[in-house]
């Protein structure tokens, strides 16, 4: 895996590829559980709470047709395959759904969040 960072190379949702805004910065939830330590009078008690490994902050370039595609995907009731590739060439994939928050027409920027049903897996060719 490369240590190169920067623009997301591509995003594929349900087999359809989308262009990603160059300044898009995906915020990746680090792991499947949130870790805490609960203090006691003796040893602290470890607490692990399951959480969704969302990928927030993804901004796609979406014209009118792509906007409708994203809307349809967000309104689907079944999971579909999602993947994204980082600047360093690492590809992550999962089945799940998306939250389509907004599209800003000034630059056709569509803000979405990737919501995996389970966990993301790194695809290594």
């Amino acid at each position, binding site marked *: 895996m490369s240590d190169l960072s920067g623009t997301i190379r591509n995003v*594929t949702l349900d087999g359809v590829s989308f262009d990603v805004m160059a300044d898009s910065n995906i915020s990746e939830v680090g792991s499947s559980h949130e870790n805490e330590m609960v203090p006691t009078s003796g040893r602290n008690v470890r607490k692990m709470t399951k959480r969704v490994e969302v990928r927030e902050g993804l901004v796609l370039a979406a014209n009118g047709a792509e906007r409708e595609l994203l809307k349809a995907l967000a309104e689907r009731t079944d999971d579909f395959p999602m*993947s994204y590739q980082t600047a360093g060439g690492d*590809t992550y994939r999962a089945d799940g759904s998306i939250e389509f928050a907004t599209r800003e027409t000034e630059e056709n920027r569509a803000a979405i969040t990737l919501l995996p049903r389970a966990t993301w897996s790194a695809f290594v*060719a």
Partner: protein
Amino acid sequence: MTNNTISAEVAKEQLDSLVEYYDIDIESDDVDQARARQSACDKVIRAIRAGRLEINKETMVVVQTLKNDNKLTYRELDGKAKVEMGKRSNDDTHGKIYSLLGSLSGVGFNGITALKGKDLTLAESLGILFLLA
């Protein structure tokens, strides 16, 4: 030497089910085309026999097992995947294949272009068959 886990008959059955389902024309009047298509079929059969490829005759889902044991699952061919091909220029056959396979597998164009060696060769062979569909 490859240890074949699947018989030649079963492998051919799987390929034939794909060819029949998509009405793929393996024959061609052009000798080079015919040779390329047959070569793709031979590679697919070899891969099925070696356990690197499996075609589900009911669902038309194709699973490719890579060298590192990762799997690529190609869903049934649909219009979405063909539209992805349209994003490549007409003379970019490899690009079209990679876009098609990237869509069908969900890993995208770049995921397929990262394949190497036998994994890439097999994916391309599969892509040639899908292109004919």
